[in-house]
């Protein structure tokens, strides 16, 4: 029985069995939930399917969120890349378009999979789906890596938090990037140890990131932070796959994230009262949105 109170536990259990983290998590969760391995695999595959479907909804020029603050950026990026304006190569192109598209889908009341939250829902699917396409990785391998991502998320939720209201954006987009980085390493054939380093590297890069949504809505800056979070995951996985290690062990990084989150003042924890949300432009937008909507 796994406790999910440290990532070291997951790595050691996997190493002992010469297996991937997803193998031991899949077995453990099936037992814990009293269901078959096939059954919970199928449920995860259904999640993966919705992740894939959530991209298309936003890849069009005219979508708008209820507030009018967002929509259309994924399409803008997609068009720019189509016209040859690519900076990061085809993998990064795909990752960024997908991350924006899924996050915009969410803002526009499309159907998404929270991973770990709705506000950070673009990161994990953008990273895994893009790499699956680029590297021709079988679907089963990608679905299995979602169990690794989930296990990492469970540890972070237990030791720290995956909620912006509790721990700031580091706990949402940071956790999502850490989960994606570890899952990607596994999907690409890296070791469980490498996956844990990727997780640590991704999380270290965003310590202190505040949750400061304009007008309290999951739009600004959340959507663009999904693109950043996805690229963070790619960078972290790339470093870890090269054998680069995090000298601070991953569980200590998570504890540091918890400490930083606790130190954040409430205005920087999803109250929409600090950071970007407190700028004159944000306040004006908030007034406009809720004012304009009221007249309807």
């Amino acid at each position, binding site marked *: 029985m796994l406790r*999910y109170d440290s990532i070291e536990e997951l790595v050691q259990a996997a190493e002992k069995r010469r297996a991937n983290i997803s193998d031991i*998590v899949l077995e453990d*969760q099936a037992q*814990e*939930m009293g269901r078959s391995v096939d059954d*919970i695999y199928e*449920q*995860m595959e*259904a*999640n993966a399917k*919705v992740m894939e479907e959530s991209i298309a909804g936003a890849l069009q020029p005219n979508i708008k*969120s*209820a*507030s009018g*603050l967002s929509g259309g950026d994924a399409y803008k990026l997609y068009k720019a890349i189509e016209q040859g304006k690519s900076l990061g190569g085809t993998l990064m192109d795909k990752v960024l378009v997908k991350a924006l598209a899924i996050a915009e*889908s*969410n*803002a*526009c*009341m*499309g*159907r*998404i*999979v*929270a*991973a*770990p*939250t*709705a*506000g950070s*829902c673009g990161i*994990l699917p953008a990273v895994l789906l893009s790499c699956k396409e680029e590297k021709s990785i079988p679907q089963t391998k990608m679905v299995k890596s*979602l*169990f690794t*991502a*989930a*296990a990492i*998320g*469970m540890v972070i*939720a*237990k030791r720290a938090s*995956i*909620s912006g*209201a509790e721990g700031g954006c580091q706990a949402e987009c940071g956790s999502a990037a850490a*989960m994606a980085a570890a899952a990607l390493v596994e999907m690409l054939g890296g070791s469980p140890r490498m996956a844990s380093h990727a997780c640590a590297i991704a999380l270290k890069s965003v310590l202190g990131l505040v949750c400061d949504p304009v*007008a*309290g*809505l*999951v*739009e600004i800056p959340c959507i663009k932070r999904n693109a950043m979070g996805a690229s963070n995951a790619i960078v972290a996985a790339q470093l870890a796959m090269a054998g680069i290690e995090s000298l601070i062990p991953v569980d200590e990084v998570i504890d540091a994230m918890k400490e930083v989150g606790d130190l954040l003042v409430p205005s920087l924890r999803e109250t*929409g009262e600090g950071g970007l949300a407190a700028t004159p432009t944000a306040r004006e937008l908030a007034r406009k*949105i*809720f004012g304009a*909507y009221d007249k309807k």
Partner: protein
Amino acid sequence: MDVFDIIGPIMVGPSSSHTAGAARIGKIARNLLGEEPVEAIIELHGSFAQTYKGHGTDRAIIGGLLGFEPDDLRIRDSLDIASQKGLGYSIRKVSLKDAHPNTARISIRDDSGKVVVVTASSVGGGNVVVKDINGLEVDFTGRSHTIVIPHRDAPGVVAAVTGLLSSNQINIGEMKVYRKRRGGDAIMVIEVDQEIDQNTADKLSELSFINQVTILQPL
């Protein structure tokens, strides 16, 4: 907590607490009424009151009242669908005492005049806690198969219910009984491990002093 608490739920955006949780609250209220609602008064407290328009909290709650799951895309258009189906609604901002920031109090009525008033909070990740039913304080999440039984406080009522469940091989995970006063209105909330079939529900509702039996499927 399991893997699907992290990867999941599948939901209509944009917010698990303000949209998915809100839809679940609406669905629970609908199930407790047990009939098609024709009128709803939705009172929003705290962050629900401040940001409901941008988060679609109003559409999500009304979607839930119409029977939609949190991943049903019809939530987007639920205000129009409510009008088509003859569900009248009003939305008010209120301040509820000692309530969680994301709390809604929903009063719904069916065409026979039956009314249910439910207060529930959306506590994160799409999870909800029901806090009050018709003025009786309760505390349950709806994550398990849950049986809600408003009844009159009288000796033997609890024993009759649990006895019937046990003879149907249904295991009780958690159970709480709430009452206003001795011999007055009371409510039993029973979380069980097995699915409750209609036959068992019917038998439960035939027991003495029991007003109604509502079976809530796991959210």
